């Protein structure tokens, strides 16, 4: 029952994420909200100059997306490891109470 619930929750999450892409009333460039906020600032104050630059910037969008993927993979990989360990070490429970 519990695993079924997780599946439904994951399905709901997937629908929520994909809905804006497939329903035509949600239109846009799907650029980052962070960038849009910065665009609003530079629009209202065209003379503003950021006073500090990032120490290192990924040389291309591809490299940046690789690093984001690495970040997600590290997080998901470790999370999966902990979940597996916890399940492996959990005492066998025979609670088929349909909870």
């Amino acid at each position, binding site marked *: 029952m*519990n695993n079924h*619930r*997780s599946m439904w*929750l*994951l399905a*709901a*999450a997937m629908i*929520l*994420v*994909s*809905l*804006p*892409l497939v329903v035509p009333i*949600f*239109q*846009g*460039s*799907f*650029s*980052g*909200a*962070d960038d*849009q*906020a*910065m665009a*609003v*600032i530079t629009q*209202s*104050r065209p003379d503003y100059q*950021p*006073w*500090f*630059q*990032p*120490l*290192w*910037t*990924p040389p291309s969008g591809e490299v*940046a997306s690789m*690093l*984001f*993927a690495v*970040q*997600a993979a*590290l*997080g*998901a*990989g*470790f*999370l999966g490891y*902990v*979940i597996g*360990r*916890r*399940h492996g070490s*959990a005492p066998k*429970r025979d609670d088929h109470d349909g*909870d």
Partner: protein
Amino acid sequence: MHIMEGFLPVEHAIGWFGVSAPFVVAGVMRLRRIVRERPQAKMMLAAAGAFTFLLSALKMPSVTGSCSHPTGTGLGAVVFGPAVMSVLGMIVLLFQALLLAHGGLTTLGANVFSMAIVGPWVSWGVWRLAGKLGASITVAVFFAAMLGDLATYMTTSVQLALAYPDLSSGIPGAIAKFGGIFAVTQLPLAIVEGLLTVVVMNALSGRAGKVDEIQVLCGEVRG
């Protein structure tokens, strides 16, 4: 919610560092105490960090036609209390500032305040309140994660509004403007974060249907 490098005026940048610093120091102390007193919780601490690492890398499309990402700080805040997330969240923000040019070092104080302090504290408060109101664990976890996520983005909106008041309508106008970009975009993503947090909490605890399983997670009770 990342304020880009160099985009906060110097005095704001310094101010937010000052506001965030005591929370991070308290977080380090709390983290050390947890590791010392309940070493069995180390694995779960790392899992809480891994969850924010994962979720804050996922930029998702939203109904406003722009993309943003969840924060993943609610899970750790529910299990360990909000203090530890100030440290774990800061590590994530540092990684992104240094390797991804996402966020920044000068804006780190402000970004830590929104993502690693306000979000987790709101999550924790909602979690406690929902428990008092008799909500089920699942419902409490969902709203804790969801409202913490929203609170982070509203904080960013206020931070930007304080630094860049609207030329005609002042700070309130600017809050509405930045809130329109961040908070509205974030609504469906906050719901997604709530759902994912429930699923992962379930997977970690075997079944997060009971309070004692959350206590097992945080190492207060040996699982």
